């Protein structure tokens, strides 16, 4: 467990050293995220990576051939090192650690916006600008829709939650009415 912790730190620091601006951060984040999803959801790829009968050098060869032209060389090299060391199963944790390291390095705030409806692009852009001004940081924005909010928004900036949703207001009202 402790050994894994060390490895996760090393790999995530390696990924972090590759990003020098917000654009690179976004690209790397999306790529790593897609990779993690792929490994979790695609049973063929997952079985291939976890298979003990397939030689590691064979795995590396397949990776190189398939991804050489698709992703950045440095990025691919780190992934190949992970495959060579049989550590590719740590990618999900490495991704999490990379995000927090990179956010700190590039002064990026992770913002999650949950709305009760699909917001128009204009509104999203306005919100993005407002958030940039308010936090004085680059914004890694993620939108989602949750109709159960009824109305209003929930905006989570790193660990701070700004909740103006009608659902929460009604829940607070309920608590006040029953005197909790």
């Amino acid at each position, binding site marked *: 467990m402790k050994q894994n912790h060390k490895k996760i730190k090393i790999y995530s620091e390696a990924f972090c050293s590759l990003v020098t601006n917000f654009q690179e951060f976004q690209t790397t984040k999306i790529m790593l995220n897609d990779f993690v999803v792929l490994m979790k959801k695609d049973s063929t790829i997952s079985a291939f990576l976890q298979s003990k009968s397939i030689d590691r050098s064979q795995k590396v060869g397949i990776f190189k051939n398939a991804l050489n032209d698709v992703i950045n060389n440095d990025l691919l090299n780190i992934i190949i090192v992970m495959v060579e060391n049989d550590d590719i199963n740590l990618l999900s944790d490495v991704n999490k650690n990379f995000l927090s390291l990179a956010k700190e390095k590039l002064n990026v705030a992770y913002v999650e916006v949950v709305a009760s409806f699909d917001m128009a692009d204009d509104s999203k852009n306005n919100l993005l600008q407002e958030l940039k001004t308010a936090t004085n940081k680059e914004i890694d924005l993620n939108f989602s829709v949750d109709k159960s909010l009824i109305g209003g928004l929930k905006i*989570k900036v790193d*660990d*701070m*939650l*700004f*909740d*103006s949703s009608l659902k*929460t*207001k009604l829940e*607070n*009202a309920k*608590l*006040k*009415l029953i*005197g*909790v």
Partner: protein
Amino acid sequence: MEIKTNQIGDLLRNQIKNIDSDIDINEVGEVLEVGDGVARTSGLGNIMSSELVEFPNGVFGMALNLEEENVGAVLFGDSSLIKEGDTAKRTGRVAEVPVGEELLGRVVNPLGQPLDGKGPINAKETLPIERKALGVMSRSPVNEPLQTGLKAIDSMIPIGRGQRELIIGDRQTGKSAIAADTIINQKSSHDTDSPVHCIYVAIGQKASTVAKLVGELESNGAMDYTTVVVANASDPAPLQYIAPYAGCAMGEYYRDNGMHALIIYDDLSKQAVAYRQMSLVLRRPPGREAFPGDVFYLHSRLLERASKLAKDLKSGSLTALPIIETQEGDVSAYIPTNVISITDGQIYLNTSLFNGGVRPAVDVGLSVSRVGGNAQIKAMKKIAGKLRLDLAQFRELEAFAKFASDLDETTALQITRGRRMVEILKQNQYVPMSVSNQVVIIYAAGKGYLDDVDLDRVKEFEVGLLEYFHTKHSDCLDQISQEGDISDDLEKAMNTGIEEFKKTF
């Protein structure tokens, strides 16, 4: 009754209008895992130790383990209502409870929420449950007696206000009975200018047992000045863990405001077990008997909060009577030895004495009060000085007498008197006795007035003598309670009274 829908609608609309429409801003984390009454959350980077955390469905928790990667919070509610990925909100408040006289007569849980169905508690003040014990300069030595109303205790193991006196014994030896009697006896203090308010903290007990006790306190008129804090056996371990601290905070309110309070922790063995459970699920390393390393501090920081305050801090007091249950009389187990070393003495209850009909089953040899003697009234000190020694000698001689048929006169007299002393110290439950009555009957026994009374008529003699004094010599009783001493004149008057009564007995 007709339901007026419009009216209800209007009421609700008005309430909703008044609700603060500001945006809810909270620092939040995400639940990583939940189980065994503990939730681990990510985020919450600025959380304080012991801060309350709000989870969905109205469940609250308390942050205890602040680790690099996550925060471990113990849950005060049903953990099945929380799932992975749920939001955990900081409240910015450390765990606190309502305090004040509004809590008198109420039965509450360790969070100060009412359990008695008597409506909300409109306390004006709250206090954090974890408070640092007062320093040396804020305290004064114990110098005021706290009467339990039990002859065996008030005479031989006196308790002073601000003292910590442990009640220890096996199961079913009458530990809680002593606590209940002491609470009931405080009723008399409410006729004086220094009333004692009581807090009874029930930890890990059956709900039916607590209900029975509350019923007894109510029927004896003791609930008027008592608060009962309950964390039943069915409540989560964290609630059982915080219950004594919550009760202590309620008691400290009286102490800090120049009043007097008595708190009973029934019992701290169960609290230690709850803490052990919590610590193990929080993955803290287990030590002796699987208790965590800080189990001594668990009790020492609690009991250190009981104190008698200095004059410039209004001289209030908080007296603590912790209860510890032993297994097969083993006082050398981990928790009993810890608490014995922390407290200012212990009342040890013996199973064989209890089964032999000596109730309260106080083992005089193993019981001690380290500071209470300074608080004992002079009258009691005078008559009880030799009582302890006499009883110890009697126990020794009694063992010999079982083998020898011929005894010399002195030994026989000692045994006769000892047997009557033991009989005198027996007392029924829920019948505490005033200190003046205690002085009269112990004085009579000590002076040998009961030596020629049949053993099975000693109780009858006691009742008769006290009745006689109340009707014919009430001045003697008044003098004892007012002056607290036995002057030569008073001694003569008492002798006369006892002799007069003996003629009629």
